């Protein structure tokens, strides 16, 4: 069978480290994406760690755990994707550097790196597998999926892909208008045969930017090849119909998670995301479920 199995997915919005159920339910994305509305298992993130980490790190931890990250083979790498990473922490550091005696909090400093979330994951989950962090603006998740696809095609059996961005709150310089919601999601991909997976990632393809590529012709070829039931075209230049706002960097992840997780009939999705550095076409299929 073509492609790889999507063995499981996890998604988190808002602050999953808050034990208070009402806070857990106060998700920042009111759309149709089914989110697990249940308090997290507290033991996974110790209390002293919870106080130190950003919402993005917390979301990545719980989304990856909910995607079966703890059950994945020890060798399965985790690819983390984020456009803006720990941008709110970086904003706080910028302010602290303005003082006459500049100082940076050690915790803020090591939490400001783009790979903070996968670092915490490996420590808390006690996993020795490789992690990497990929970034390319609004197509960060899509390029991480392409990177995962390359790894699966060249011999990896299992890969975890986690994408996430948190709402920009104290970094006006970063055009906060393009990221006003939190969203993080993880897919557990496997090239091994699975009797239980209800969804597959059928193909991931890079599409060169115009004028190299004629968008219309490429889309027609993809439609002819995959006969999708649902076609979604988007990217930063599009008016993207998600509750995340038109230019949210994780809009592509939102569409893919919604297709895989929401109740509905069986079908095939063609998700084409265009950006200034080229686009990515994602083809996924799913079985019917309630």
């Amino acid at each position, binding site marked *: 069978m073509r492609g790889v199995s999507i063995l499981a997915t996890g998604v988190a919005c808002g602050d999953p480290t808050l034990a208070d159920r009402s806070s857990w339910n106060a998700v920042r994305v009111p759309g149709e994406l089914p989110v697990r509305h249940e308090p997290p298992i507290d033991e996974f993130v110790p209390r002293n760690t919870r106080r130190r980490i950003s919402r993005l790190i917390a979301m990545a931890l719980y989304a990856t755990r909910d995607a079966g990250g703890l059950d994945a083979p020890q060798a399965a790498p985790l690819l983390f994707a984020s456009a803006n990473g720990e941008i709110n922490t970086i904003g706080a550091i910028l302010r602290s550097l303005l003082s006459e005696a500049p100082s940076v909090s050690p915790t803020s400093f090591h*939490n400001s790196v783009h790979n*903070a979330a996968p*670092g*915490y994951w490996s420590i808390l989950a006690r996993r020795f597998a490789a*992690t990497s962090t990929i970034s390319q*603006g609004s197509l960060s998740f899509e390029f991480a999926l392409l990177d995962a696809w390359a790894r699966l095609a060249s011999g990896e059996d299992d890969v975890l892909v986690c994408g996430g961005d948190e709402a920009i709150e104290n970094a006006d310089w970063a055009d906060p208008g393009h990221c006003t919601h939190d969203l993080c999601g993880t897919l557990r991909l496997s090239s091994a045969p699975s009797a239980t997976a209800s969804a597959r990632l059928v193909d991931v393809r890079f599409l060169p930017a115009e004028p190299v590529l004629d968008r219309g012709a490429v889309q027609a070829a993809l439609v002819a090849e995959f006969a999708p039931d649902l076609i979604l075209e988007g990217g930063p230049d599009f008016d993207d119909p998600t509750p995340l706002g038109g230019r949210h960097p994780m809009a592509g992840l939102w569409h893919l998670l919604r297709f895989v997780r929401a109740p509905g009939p069986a079908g095939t999705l063609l998700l084409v995301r265009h950006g200034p550095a*080229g686009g990515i076409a994602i083809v996924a299929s799913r079985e019917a479920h309630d």
Partner: protein
Amino acid sequence: MIPVSHEKASHNAGCAVDKAGAVPDTRASLAVRPFVSNTPIPILAFASVSALGRTLEATTRRLFDGSTGLAFGSAVVPDTPSPLGEVSGPLPPLPDGLAVWDCRANRLLAMAMAQVAPELAQVRQAFGPGRVGVVIGTSASGNTDLEQAYAIDGATGYDYHHRQSFGACATLAARLAGVSGPAYAVSTACSSGANAMISAAHLIRAGLCDAVIVGATDAICRTTVFGFQALGVTDPDLCRPFDADRRGLNLGEGAAVLVLGRRRPDGLGGGPDLFLAGWGATSEAHHMTQPDPEGDGSARTMAAALACAGLAPADIGYLNLHGTATPQNDTAEARGVAKVFGTNVAAGSTKGYTGHLLGAAAAVEAVISLIALRDQRLPPSLNLNRKDPDVPIDILDAVTPAPGIRYALSNSFAFGGNDTSLIFGVRR
């Protein structure tokens, strides 16, 4: 020698899988798993810029002169409490039409790219621009310029998308090279350049690209200078990797690019054939900033790289160590080396020449490893007056001829316990 035995050590994902099928011409298809092997990936060109030199020639010369690029005082962070490996003097502006990407890190990247322009033209011609990808590592992107703009007016109107967003350096590199394959950034703090290399290798092995421009860039900025100061791991004097009196690291800046190819195009370059032979990447699962003191994390990573390349420890003729000169790193790393290679090794750190280039360190040290393989001689670890008795391995203290050397391994470790080892080879 202590044999390394661990589940991860024998795992060589993406490196030595023997599956039926063929790599399609234009894309990776998982309908049929493509045939992959641990065939070396040719390195078609390489260049770096750092405090050691703005060109490959200057870098090579000073590497074997033993002259450091570290200096007291800084134009970028004048109040730095420790020496820096700053690229002194004005940096050339970006070419016409690309000025929107202007920032110190991108200027450094462009300086490295310019050195391989002739080879890039041949690669573009041989494979076609759409088959050439770009993966660039960075830990701070345009943070130097963002800090300056923020201090002036809160960075009002700052072009975040082009000058700071992490993917910007990759998009710029693609524009500089005139290529239109996939282009993205990898950011895993101080191992960014190595993880970029691993992604690039997968793109080639999967058949998604025929060549990949891979490298890394980072510029000195206040966040990292004062951040590492806050962690208490900087040396107010010149850094002394593996020395008994070492106190910490000095920061540096720079960029490097390598061009990896599915094959070497006809007529490209002279000199010996250099290649990426394998890699290891693991997580220490120990602490966000502290290494596993016994070196088990780094040992796992080096052993994984050997397994990936299909090599034995004795095949490695030069170990370019992470060697930041922090008390914790150097002891832990040396213990890890001893577990895999024994104590009688040809090993050293080049941080005493360049400082710690953070996200660019692995890429610049890849170039230094390639110089060592090409020239068959090994640079010493600078400022080594009295080796730490807790460092159980030999450390190079003089330029050492290495006739017949075939493989070099380069380590880079990062926050989050992100450990990487790259193995480069030469064929004459």
